[in-house]
């Protein structure tokens, strides 16, 4: 969730600590802060650019190509008409997507056949003066990429945290209020909460009859419904501060009523909804809201413009004065027919508490997850409804109010108020689970800071969490609160008691690894291929792709693909045969089985045929396991059921005879570009060794050589000479090599070889 620093400050009396300190404390004691983003408020999208280079425009004399560094270690090219700056200057750059004060949006543009990404701005273009005669060259030592707001006088920067609020705290912390309360606890600051009573309930004028009634069909659908009829509004554009706040957390402002409802939702965590009262029916001068289950074949056009068939588990907010038509899908989304517009003057406001499971089912059935459904499915506390309604009315009176603004009716249906259960905790219980040495005093201190009620009993503390902390119901829940705030860093390291008796040897683990060891020894390399495939017996209901819609029923397909794939790289890898194995589970004949697949493919250079290579594996396994291993014949890829073999093997007594694989290895990525081959054959005197020749070769081949090997050695009995033939593999990490580039290298190789006395290339 995106959380605004300034917005948090509204809840805290003292000035907040710097953003990075907040992020660190939250991460260590509450939630992970995944990022801190700074956004310019006065000049959004404008950043400082450093002019690295200036080039001429190929097609226009008056334009120049400006290469700027924007702090992301890339070069950005911008076409610019001004000439009052030179290389090395710092300038304001409006990046792609920026909207300038004159309404101009910066897009990728092609100016006289040259692409331009962004705009270097003058003071006029930034709205600071009427006319400018050139670019604004900054007198600053700011780093490229710095927000323009940070370097210019009068600039303002908004800081936004990206916080990963996990499901156990989603009910109280998908809100600025919740996060602010945590920050106040962590830094010992004073938290100012919203009023939680319906203080606005003095309707005006009170002698008039009620204009709103609410009926709840099944209380388990909706634990609480606070409804308010408010009129005398002007639903114009909301003020700049509110629009800025919404934009800073990624929301798009719409109109005063919708913006206010969204704002209070992100502030309190309580979803809110506003109906245009003029679009609702009336019975004897009163609007009648009914909360009921969705009906068969009922549908509704929602605020997103789509028409939804309402699932049976859905909760419908209906207009009982207009044939019970659906006004909204409770907890998920509002309906289009009752939507607030800029012509709205009176509204029915809703702050309700919908059932989490039914909301989740509805949201899943419709594949429609909204900010509202996300909060309800995490079960928010019913105490939030009046608090949020209160705040919403205060805000609406402020930003959309007139002299005639009045609360006509207030309804609060809350038949079964929540009670918080207390939990009994002792310092011993805490220390027994955490391995810490906290005292009762420490516990009381932490829990009091968290606004828990703590009462001392004879031998335990009776702890009652605040009404909106629905996650704390058991002893370990309380211990977690103490642990995280007191600090897990206080846990000293102690080794657990040792095991009673020997550690059992796992037969499967042992034997499968013996098989791996043996196969590797006889030249087979292990692959792991995809278990989700185009064919199989077990189909996936929700596959990632059509060709991954089944659980495999054989390893052969994957291993055959791997075989074919690797045949292309035998030169690169310097291998004379591809020999592969995979051990993995398949689903066949309604059971999960462990299979071993083997595959072989010799190159022309190999002395062995496919069957001979596979036989090597068969013999090795038969010898080592002591049971006859039979492989299918005359196919390059075979598969056997390993479970059947494991059944016959004895229980091992130790893992000690497995090969030690703990060595450190540094992996090198392979290039994505094709490789090129060159062969060199030469005659040398018999006294010259392979490595003598190699030494000369490698002095000339340079960095592009990725592999080389001797592929032929020929020594006639007659005469004093022998022949060597080497194969070279060239490859670049940056590009596809050309013949010419490789030929240049090879020319120098030939030259070096021929320069040796008695050596001749052929």
């Amino acid at each position, binding site marked *: 969730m995106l959380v605004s620093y300034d917005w948090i400050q509204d809840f805290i009396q003292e000035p907040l600590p710097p953003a990075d300190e907040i992020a660190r404390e939250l991460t260590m004691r509450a939630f992970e802060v995944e990022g801190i983003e700074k956004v310019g408020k006065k000049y959004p999208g404008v950043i400082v650019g450093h002019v690295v280079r200036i080039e001429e425009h190929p097609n226009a004399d008056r334009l120049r190509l400006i290469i700027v560094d924007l702090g992301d270690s890339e070069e950005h090219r911008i076409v610019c008409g001004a000439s009052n700056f030179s290389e090395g200057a710092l300038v304001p750059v409006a990046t792609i997507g920026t909207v300038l004060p004159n309404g101009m949006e910066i897009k990728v543009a092609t100016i006289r056949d040259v692409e331009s990404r962004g705009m270097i701005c003058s003071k006029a273009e930034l709205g600071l003066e009427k006319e400018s005669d050139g670019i604004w060259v900054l007198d600053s030592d700011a780093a490229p990429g710095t927000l323009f707001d940070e370097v210019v006088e009068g600039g303002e920067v908004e800081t936004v945290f990206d916080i990963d609020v996990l499901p156990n705290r989603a009910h109280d912390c998908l809100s600025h209020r919740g996060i602010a309360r945590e920050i106040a606890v962590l830094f010992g600051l004073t938290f100012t909460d919203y009023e939680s009573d319906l203080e606005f309930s003095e309707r005006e004028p009170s002698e008039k009859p009620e204009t709103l009634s609410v009926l709840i069909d099944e209380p388990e659908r909706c634990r609480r419904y606070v409804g308010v009829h408010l009129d005398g509004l002007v639903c114009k554009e909301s003020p700049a501060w509110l629009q800025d706040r919404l934009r800073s957390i990624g929301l798009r402002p719409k109109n005063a009523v919708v913006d206010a409802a969204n704002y209070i939702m992100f502030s309190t965590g309580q979803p809110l909804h506003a109906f245009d009262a003029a679009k609702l029916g009336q019975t004897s001068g009163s609007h009648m809201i009914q909360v009921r289950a969705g009906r068969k074949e009922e549908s509704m056009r929602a605020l997103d413009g789509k028409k939804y068939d309402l699932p049976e588990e859905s909760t419908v907010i209906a207009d009982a004065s207009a044939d019970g038509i659906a006004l909204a899908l409770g907890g998920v989304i509002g309906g289009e027919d009752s939507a607030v517009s800029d012509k709205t003057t009176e509204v029915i406001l809703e702050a309700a508490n919908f059932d989490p499971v039914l909301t989740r089912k509805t949201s899943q059935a419709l594949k429609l997850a909204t900010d509202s459904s996300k909060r309800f499915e995490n079960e928010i506390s019913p105490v939030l409804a009046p608090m949020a309604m209160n705040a919403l009315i205060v805000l609406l009176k402020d930003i959309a109010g007139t002299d005639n603004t009045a609360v006509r009716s207030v309804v609060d249906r809350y038949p079964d108020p929540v009670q918080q259960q207390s939990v009994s905790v002792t310092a011993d219980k805490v220390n027994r689970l955490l391995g810490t040495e906290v005292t009762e005093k420490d516990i009381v201190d932490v829990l009091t800071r968290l606004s828990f009620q703590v009462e001392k009993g004879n031998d335990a503390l009776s702890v009652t969490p605040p009404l909106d902390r629905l996650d704390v119901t058991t002893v370990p829940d309380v211990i977690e609160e103490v642990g995280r705030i007191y600090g897990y860093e206080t846990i000293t390291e102690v080794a657990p008691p040792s095991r009673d008796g020997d550690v059992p040897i796992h037969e499967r683990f042992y034997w499968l690894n013996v098989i791996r060891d043996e196969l590797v*020894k006889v030249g087979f390399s292990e692959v792991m291929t995809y278990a989700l495939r185009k064919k199989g017996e077990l189909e996936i209901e929700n596959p990632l792709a059509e060709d991954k819609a089944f659980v495999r029923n054989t390893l052969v397909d994957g291993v055959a693909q791997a075989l074919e794939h690797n045949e292309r790289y035998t030169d690169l890898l310097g291998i004379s045969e591809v020999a592969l194995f995979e051990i993995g589970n398949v689903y066949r004949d309604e059971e999960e089985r462990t299979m071993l697949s083997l595959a072989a493919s010799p190159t022309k250079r190999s002395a062995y045929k496919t069957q001979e290579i596979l036989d090597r594996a068969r013999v090795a396994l038969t010898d080592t396991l002591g049971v006859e291993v039979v492989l299918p014949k005359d196919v390059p890829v075979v598969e056997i059921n390993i479970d059947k073999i494991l059944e016959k093997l004895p229980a091992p007594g130790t893992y000690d005879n497995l090969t030690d694989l*703990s060595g450190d290895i540094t992996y090198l990525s392979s290039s994505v570009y094709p490789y090129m081959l060159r062969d060199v054959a030469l005659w040398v005197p018999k006294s010259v060794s392979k490595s003598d020749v190699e030494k000369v070769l490698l002095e000339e081949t340079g960095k592009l050589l990725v592999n080389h090997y001797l592929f032929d050695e020929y020594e006639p009995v007659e005469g004093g000479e022998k022949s060597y033939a080497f194969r070279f593999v060239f490859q670049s990490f940056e590009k596809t090599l050309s013949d010419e580039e490789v030929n240049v290298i090879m020319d120098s190789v030939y030259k070096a070889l021929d320069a040796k006395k008695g050596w001749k290339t052929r």
Partner: protein
Amino acid sequence: MRFTNAVHQTAFFCIIKPIMTEGHYHPITRMNRQINDIFFDLGFEVVDGPEVEDEWHNFDALNIPPHHPARDMWDTFWLKGENPRKLLRTHTSPIQIRHMEEHGAPVRIIAPGKTFRNEATDATHEAQFYQVEGLLIAQDITMAHLKTTLTTFFQKLFHADIHARLRPSYFPFVEPGVEMDISCFLCESKGCRVCKQTGWIEVLGAGMVHPNVLTNVGLDSAKWQGFAFGGGTDRFAMLKYGIDDVRKLYTGDLRVVNQF
């Protein structure tokens, strides 16, 4: 590395051909073997379980009831046609349930295995990957034991002087739940690309086993307590060997495997 040469002789010349070199282990196998070696010395026994799982073992027994939003933490591949419906296990945690159901307590196990997540793949996410689960249940096991056990494990795995820190997190089957970071052994905590300049690397999730989980497998949660952890074997391999893209592990490509 072993290198065998066959020599074919004729009257006129001899040809030497390299015919067989040793093969190579998949990096995940190397990792699983080291994980077992280290935990064996710490008294942990290997156990395993099926990849095709039921909802009870993968979710319900782990204190993740149907329709709980926490289920969104695991993007699940559901399987057609079974009643009750089955799934591809999203973590190795169902193995701990199966083990406790069968053997009760005390428990001291690790469970390495393949797992599946229905999510878009990229350099750090794959739809199939390996995890290792660990579980230690006895009468007085604490979070201090958890921290010590895992610190020792990572010191031995990465052959480095590593220290660890615990941060609050949430997994329904543990309470308290924590995320564990280790000091970056690649840059000695000075800040590098891998630790994103923080000096810390997030390595696994862990916590004290939730009483509901113990109750679900028939254990008395007033008597037994302990810790559980689960980490990504692929991620450990990527960190140890410097592999830049998890997807390269499952393409059957010897350009990768032959380096191990």
